C-alpha cells in the first residue's frame, strides 16, 4: 500500500464544510485542514482556534524599525556626514525629516507584512501532494474541501472515509504522499 498524505473530501456549501469541520474536531481529529475558494466565516476558529498575533507583531516591529531607519538615514546625511547650513536651520531639523520617516515606516511595514504572510503560510511551495488530487482542483473555484492528514494520531483511512460519508461529502479521495 502506498503511503498516504491524507484523505480529502469535497463539500458543496460553506455551511456543510463548517459543520463537517466542527464534527471532526468533536470526534478528536487534530491534523485536518480546510481549503476554500474564499475565507469562510467562522471556519478558522474551528480548524485552528486561538488568537493569532504573530503577523500584527511582526508588522508593528517592522514599522518601528522602518521609522528608525528612515530617520537615521536623514540624520546621518544632514547632521553628521554632510552638514549644510540652510538659512541657519538646525542640522538635525527633525520636523523636515518627518515626511520621509513616515514613508520609510510604511514601506517597511508593508514589506514585512507580505514577507510574513508568505513565510507563515509556507509559501512559495510550488508542489504539494494535494495538487495531485482530483477533488482538490475545484477548491480554488467553487467547492469546499477538507483533508484529514495521515499525521493525525487518530488517522485511520477506512474510519476517515466513513466519517466523511456520514457527513455527506460529494467526493472522497485518498491522497498519496
Amino acid at each position: 500500500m502506498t503511503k498516504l498524505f491524507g484523505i480529502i473530501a469535497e463539500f458543496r456549501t460553506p455551511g456543510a464544510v463548517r459543520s463537517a469541520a466542527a464534527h471532526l474536531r468533536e470526534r478528536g481529529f487534530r491534523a485536518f485542514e480546510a481549503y476554500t475558494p474564499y475565507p469562510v466565516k467562522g471556519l478558522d476558529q474551528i480548524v485552528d482556534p486561538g488568537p493569532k498575533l504573530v503577523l500584527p507583531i511582526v508588522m508593528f516591529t517592522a514599522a518601528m524599525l522602518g521609522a528608525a531607519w528612515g530617520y537615521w538615514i536623514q540624520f546621518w546625511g544632514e547632521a553628521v556626514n554632510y552638514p549644510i547650513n540652510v538659512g541657519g536651520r538646525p542640522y538635525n531639523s527633525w520636523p523636515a525629516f518627518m515626511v520621509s520617516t513616515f514613508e520609510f515606516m510604511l514601506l517597511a511595514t508593508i514589506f514585512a507584512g507580505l514577507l510574513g504572510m508568505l513565510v507563515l503560510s509556507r509559501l512559495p511551495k510550488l508542489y504539494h501532494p494535494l495538487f495531485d488530487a482530483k477533488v482538490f482542483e475545484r477548491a480554488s473555484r467553487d467547492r469546499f474541501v477538507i483533508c484529514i492528514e495521515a499525521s493525525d494520531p487518530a488517522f485511520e483511512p477506512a474510519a476517515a472515509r466513513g466519517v466523511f460519508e456520514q457527513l455527506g461529502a460529494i467526493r472522497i479521495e485518498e491522497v498519496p504522499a
Partner: protein
Amino acid sequence: MVAPEVTLTSLSEKVSSCVLTDRAPLWWWIGFGCSFMLFLVLPIQMAVLFIDGIGVWGVRIPVAWGLALAEYVWWIALASGGTIVSALFYLTRSPWRSATNRIAESMLLSAVPCAGLMPIMHLGRPGLFYWLFPYSNVMGVWPQARSPLWWDFICLLCYILMSLMYYYAGLIPDLATVRDLAQTRFKKIFYGVLALGWRGSVSQWRNQRVVYATMSAIMAPMVVSVHSVVGLDFAGGLTPGWHVTQFPPYFFFGAVISGTALIIMLTILVRWGYGLQDVLTEYHLNALAKVMLVGCLLLGYAYVWEAFGPIYGSDVAEKTESYHRMFGFTAPAFWSEKILTVVIPQLLWFPPVRRNVLLLVLISGGIILGMWQERYVFTISSLAHNSIPSYWGSYFPTVWDWAALAGTIGLFLTLFFLFLRFVPIISMSEVREIIEEEKSG
C-alpha cells in the same frame, strides 16, 4: 450588487477565461495596437530630448516648469485615485469595491510609471537621477532631506514599491484559480509559479486577510501623503499662486475626482469588452459616480478658497497673478476647466445620469481633461507672473511637449491592456464572498 445568476462556478470560469483564452478578442487587439503605436512616440520623444536637451520643450526662464511637471501632477493624481478606491473603501467595508478594486489597482500601476518618467525627463541630466537615492557614495554627498522635492521622490518611490506589494498580496488567490483552470502546460507553469503554490487553506486565508487589511489601513494614509507632498512641491516655494497652505488637500481632492473618473471609464471598458455586465453592475457605476460627485464638491470648495485668498489678502503679487490666471492668457483653460470639473458633474445628483453609461463616459472624460487644464494653468500662470513684472514671461508648448503627453498616454494604455490580457481583472475571491452573502440574504 451582483446579478443573481452569477455563481461561484460561472464567476471563476468567466473571469479566468478572459486571461486563459488563446485568442484575444478583436477589441483588445485594436485597443492594444493603437496604444502601442501611441507609445512608440515616447522613445522618439525621449531620444530627441536627451540628445538635444530640454530646450526642445517650450520651457525657459522664468517658466522653467512646463507641461512635463503639470502632467507629472496629473498622472500621479490619476494613479492615486486607484489607491483611494481600493484601500480607502476596503476600510469602510464598501461591498462595491470588491469588483472594481483590481481595475483600480491595474490602472494605478499603469499610471505610476508615466508619472515617474515626467520629472526624470525634466531633469536635464536624467542619467544622474540616481543621486536622489540616499546611499553612501564615494562623492561623500547626500540629498537635501529638508526639501519637499526630495520628500516627493521618496514618496513616489515608496508608493510604487508599496502598490506593487499591495497588488500582489491581493492577487495571489486569484492566480491560483487561474492556475487550476489552465489547460496548456505553459500556462499552468506560468500561473503556477506566480501563484506561489497557494492552496487556500484556512491558515493561508487568515494570514492573507490580516495582512491585506493592515496594508489597506497603511495605503490609505499613504496615498493622502503622496499627493499632499506633491502639493508641497509647489506650496514650499514663494511663487505667487503656489504659496498657499491649502495646496496639499486641494491636490488630494483633485486626485479623488480625476482618479475616480478614470476608473469609471476603464470599468465601462472592461464591462463592455469582457461582457461582465452581471458582475460590474449599475450598482458599481452608481457608487463610483457618487464618489466622483463628492470629489467635485470638495474640489469646488478648494476653488472658492483659491480665489478668496488673493482677494482677501494684501499681497499685490498674489492679486496680480490671480487676475492674470483668471483673465489673461490662461483664461479659456481656467474657466472651461471649472465648468468641466465642477459645474457639469453636478448632473451626477440625478440618479438616471449615474446609470447612463454614455453620460458617465462623457462626464468622466471631461473631468480628466479639466484636471489636466487645472494642472497646466497653475503651473504655467504662476511662473509667468512672478513677483517682479520685469521677470514675467510666457510659455508655449512645442510639438515635443505634446509628444511627451501622447507617449505617456500610450504607455499607460499599453500597460493597462497588458494587465487586461494577463491578470484576472476582477478580484474573484472577494466577489465570491459577496455572492455567498447575497445568497444567504
